[in-house]
């Protein structure tokens, strides 16, 4: 059971529309290194972890990723909500608008919808944790690429926050890996 708290993990107030940035940010929601993929994968993998170290960490990071999905949805909405049709067309979002209006939809910046084919899960404790560590590094790299694409501090600050969370998650996964290696996995 997930209990909802009506509060974003980090405050968001983006006052300037930026369709290009909205289009790019969608990637960290529904792309291969995105938060949706991470959340569902961790929540799946927690079930087959051998002890409470792994079950707890994958559970708690998985839940935090759900909060990151909420942040990205909010950012995309704030960047897009005041756009006119002409602006959407000019930003190459005419196709997006026809399919989804101004709804937030998980896909890549080039329009491929989210797919579970992104999700790697092998049933092997070590392989799963190493995969998750790589996922955190890939997400960190994508956040850095995104930060370089804008000068708007209202967007940069939450992206710096999200990037830093990948660093923390990577470290805790690394400590989990060491725990299982000590146990002989």
């Amino acid at each position, binding site marked *: 059971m997930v*209990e*909802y*708290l*009506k*509060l*974003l*993990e*980090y*405050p*968001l*107030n*983006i006052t300037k529309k930026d369709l290009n940035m909205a289009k790019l940010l969608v990637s960290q929601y529904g792309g291969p290194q995105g938060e949706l993929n991470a959340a569902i994968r961790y929540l799946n993998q927690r079930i087959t972890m051998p002890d*409470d*170290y792994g079950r*707890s*960490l994958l559970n*708690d*990071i998985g839940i*935090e990723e759900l909060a990151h999905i*909420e942040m990205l*949805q*909010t950012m995309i*909405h*704030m960047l897009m909500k005041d756009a006119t049709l002409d602006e959407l067309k000019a930003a190459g979002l005419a196709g997006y608008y026809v399919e989804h209006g101004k709804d937030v939809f998980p896909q890549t910046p080039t329009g491929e919808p989210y797919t579970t084919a992104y999700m790697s899960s092998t049933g092997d404790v070590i392989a799963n944790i190493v995969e998750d560590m790589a996922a955190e590094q890939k997400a960190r790299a994508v956040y*850095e690429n995104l*930060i370089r694409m804008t000068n708007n*501090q209202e967007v*940069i*600050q939450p992206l*710096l*926050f*999200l*990037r*830093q*969370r990948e*660093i*923390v*998650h990577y*470290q*805790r996964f690394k*400590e*989990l890996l060491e*725990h299982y290696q000590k146990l002989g996995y």
Partner: protein
Amino acid sequence: MQNHINYFDLNHLNQELANNQRASVKFALAVDGLSKGNMDVALYDPFANYVAKKLDDKDPKVLLRAFLFAMIDLQLYLDVHPDDVVVKELFNKYLEEFRKMKEEIERKEGPLTLDSKYNLTKNWVWECKWPFAGEK
């Protein structure tokens, strides 16, 4: 007798938390941790020349979020270091502060969670504004 902690008086809490830091891992104060996205001081890794803006520690919502963030980040640490009782003590502190602050904000703005005592109303009240509507 336990001193009353005014949770708008961060200095008091900060002092208490600073006194707690006997652990091998040094944790930031909650608002600094939230502003940077990382409670673990040694683990903090800034990106290039970008500077994380310090959030307003006079804003009750920032404090609520900071105490929650501290709990979330210490929780991840405790998941893989369950025997660290010093950090658990810090966690407990933040949990207390979070509950007090949540009560304070819900009293003014309405329930933040389903199980809030401010949901004990005659009519259905889900009036606290939605997070995705934007906030300072």
